[in-house]
């Protein structure tokens, strides 16, 4: 419909859909998150396809992928890398850690000690790593998919609210639909299919698209709508506090990415509504006996579009 129509993005989405079945919405949100240069937190049970999703994203965009299994004895150096004395060269040489990949899957991030967690989260925010006094830039694009298991409490260090803010979105995949699950059981393993998946886009194209996201128009009435939503979170009865200005920016970027994914060069209220729950859910401090999803839905239903 508009000159900004992006067929290659649609193709990427289609390719992803062949791997993760019947999960179009989470897929779109994950893609949106990547386009908005944000990081993704997936909160879900083991075995619902978190790793496959991360892998598929890397594959479709032709990105380098590293998986990091977080454990309680994982050290910051295990993520960032370490300097080792090279006797041949007669000097220390830096061996980059897994964080120097374009897509990093941080599995079960809440199992690691807070010190290790914060090493990764700092890298996510700064998009660079400082070790031994030298600052090294992380690759661009740089996309972290962290997972955590909400069910387990023993031996975990839940991410504090300030750290959660580093993630643009929080998603959960959930069980697949019956028809999708049937296909999963009949067809060849997804990981095998993944290996055959050709890259649809390149890293350079992704960078271009990420730049394009920032140019998607946000008209004055849309900014009014964003403000109204943010204000509503600050006044809601079941919330201890509302969205921060940084969260407001995140909401805007995510909505822009969603609009681009939809092939629009202007953000419409529906775009904001589509990403609102994913972006705000983990940032809202909910009073007991309330649930962020419900509160977010309540806010969306109650705030009038200006």
């Amino acid at each position, binding site marked *: *419909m508009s000159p900004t129509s992006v067929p290659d993005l649609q193709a990427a989405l289609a390719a992803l859909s062949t791997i993760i079945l019947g999960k179009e919405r989470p897929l779109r949100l994950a893609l949106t998150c990547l386009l908005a240069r944000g990081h993704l937190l997936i909160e879900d049970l083991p075995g619902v396809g978190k790793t496959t999703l991360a892998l598929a994203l890397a594959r479709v965009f032709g990105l380098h992928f590293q998986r990091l299994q977080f454990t309680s004895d994982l050290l910051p150096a295990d993520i960032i890398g370490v300097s080792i004395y090279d006797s041949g060269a007669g000097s220390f040489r830096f061996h980059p850690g897994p964080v120097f990949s374009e897509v990093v899957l941080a599995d079960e991030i809440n199992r690691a000690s807070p010190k290790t967690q914060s090493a990764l989260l700092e890298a996510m925010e700064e998009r660079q790593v400082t070790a031994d006094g030298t600052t090294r830039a992380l690759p661009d694009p740089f996309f972290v998919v962290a997972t955590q298991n909400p069910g387990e409490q023993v031996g975990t260090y839940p991410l504090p609210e300030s750290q959660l803010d580093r993630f643009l979105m929080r998603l959960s995949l959930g069980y697949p639909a019956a028809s999708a699950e049937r296909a999963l059981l009949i067809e060849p393993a997804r990981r095998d299919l993944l290996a055959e998946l050709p890259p649809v886009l390149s890293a350079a194209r992704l960078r271009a698209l990420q730049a394009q996201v920032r140019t998607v*128009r946000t008209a004055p*009435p849309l900014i009014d709508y964003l403000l109204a939503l943010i204000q509503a979170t600050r006044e809601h009865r079941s919330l201890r506090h509302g969205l921060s200005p940084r969260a407001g920016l995140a909401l805007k970027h995510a909505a822009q990415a969603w609009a681009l994914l939809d092939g629009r060069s202007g953000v*419409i*209220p*529906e775009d904001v*509504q589509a990403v609102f729950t994913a972006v705000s859910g983990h940032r809202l401090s909910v009073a007991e006996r309330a649930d962020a999803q419900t509160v977010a839905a309540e806010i969306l239903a109650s705030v009038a*579009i*200006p």
Partner: protein
Amino acid sequence: MPNAAQVPRAALSRLVVLRLLAVQTAVLAPHLPRLPPWAAALVAMILVWRTAATLRGWPMLAGWMRVLLTLGAFVGIYASFGRVSGQTAGVALITVMAALKLTELKSRRDLMVMVFLLYFLLVTHFLFSQALWTAAYLLAAATLITALLIDANHPGAALPLRVVAVMAGGLVLRAVPLMALIFVLFPRIPGPIWGLPADAGAARSGLSDSMAPGAISELVGSDAVAFRVRFDAAVPPPAARYWRGPSFLRFDGRSWDSGSRAGAIDAPAAELRGTGYGYELTLEPTRTPWLFALDLPARQGSPDDALINADYQLVLARGEVRERRRYRLQSYPDYRLQPSLPGALRTLATALPGASNPRAQALARQWRAAAVSDAAIVDRALRMFREQPFHYTLSPPLLGRDPVDAFLFETRRGFCEHYASSFAVLMRAAGIPARVVTGYQGGERNAIGDYWIVRQSDAHAWTEVWLAGRGWVRVDPTAAVAPERIERGIGSAIDSTELPDFLNPALRNGYRFDLRARWDWLNARWNQWVLGYGPELQDDFLRRFGIGEWREMILVMTALLTLTLSAFGLLLLRRSTPRQRDDAPTRAWRRLQRRLARAGLPQLASEGAADYAARVAAARPDLASTITAAAQRYIAARYVDSDDSRDLRALKAAIARVRP
């Protein structure tokens, strides 16, 4: 978000508590004299103690002490009244409990409870008095409570007095039109609004159904209004201003009463002559069936529920005058009453207890022997009063077993009842039928409102004698002794040292008198238009606006109230959210919204255009293509295109194509 319904449990500032105490004192004070002395003392003590406790920072009472006090007060009220409900006992109970609440009051929530309790307590004053000053006082007190309510709703420190007062005054002022509206429209039931059954037993001063020496002079001390009169045109001269009340036929040697004839309702024949005086009389409640009337009222035109009894007194056919009552009459001072006297009545009207007052009887018999006619005997008696040293006084000496003898031959000092009584006894002893008539004589003109006030102090007693060919003729022996009493009122007839202040002629000039007249005029208006605004007046008033039925009235009232409140709400809403002007694409889109809303598909406030179009397309497949196109145009114009590139014409065209 701060919840409006939540009242913070925060502690109260000292200033707010002191203000509460001041307001509470103002509200409770008028009730104190109505309480049993111990309860009044308890309330006053608690108020003083709490004030001191607030100023000095004393601790509140312990829990067990409060429980003890509360139970004690409850038992005390029960012991004093024999019950805890009803007008006096109930009000006493809540008054004491409102004071006791002070012993535990510490949070803002308590203050809120107190404020509403005070509003309620305020209204209970109307159970005891509905006078103009009560209403004014209560309005002022309501403003004070409202000020307190504002304070109670303001978190943190107390607001400056000026701010609170101005806000409260403004609120009350704004409530006045609503108050007036409800007052006018609220459906009335017959009877006084505030009258409770218990209230009806209250003692009232006034004439009674018998007359003993001293009965009338007691009334002179009372400046209470008996009735007010407004004459249509001419006003009768003072000597004709006799307001007829009960008359007495039976004499037991000391006091007079109506005897066995009480309740006889066969009106005697009366011939009314000359021109009459038309007037409207507003009678204060008397708890008797009597309706006072100028001598002599015409039967025609008198109230439907009244009749004229055998003594030619206007009385209610049944019931008593329990509330203020207004009626119209036509009276004729020139009359001939009962020209032919029935034998039985003649016997009654000449009867005297044989052994009493022998000297008076002897004197009358002596006159009878010397006289040529009955009229001559009347003149003889009046001459005696005029020529012998009789004295008209409010404080006559006590009389013995034969009061008429003692009065006529020894003390010669008396008030109108002494003169009327002894004159009637003399006439009867001489064989002339005679009776005593009580009522009021005179009245005071209120120049402000051009009406006449007749007070209890105008109470009077006179006699009627029956003369052949003339019927009952009024003879007022007081006029023979003190003609000023009849011509200029009691204030001029009695030595000023004996008079109550309000009758003292020296004080009846100047601004005080003028103020009194104005105040009475205001009260008369208040009685007539506010307290007297009963079902009839309401009907009359509303009929002028074409509202006849009370059902309609309730409807109108509800409609008016709803309209007023919604207008007010709308005003507030407008003021709180400055309305944004819709941009051009949205104005066009609103047309589509309205059209589809009429077709049963309104757009939700939180629903975007694209979602809405999808919903409409699903519900109405025939509109799918046009609504989708219109929504795309709208989205493009509003969110995608910049202001100068947007194509409003295409949007409007697309919207026009959507035809549900």
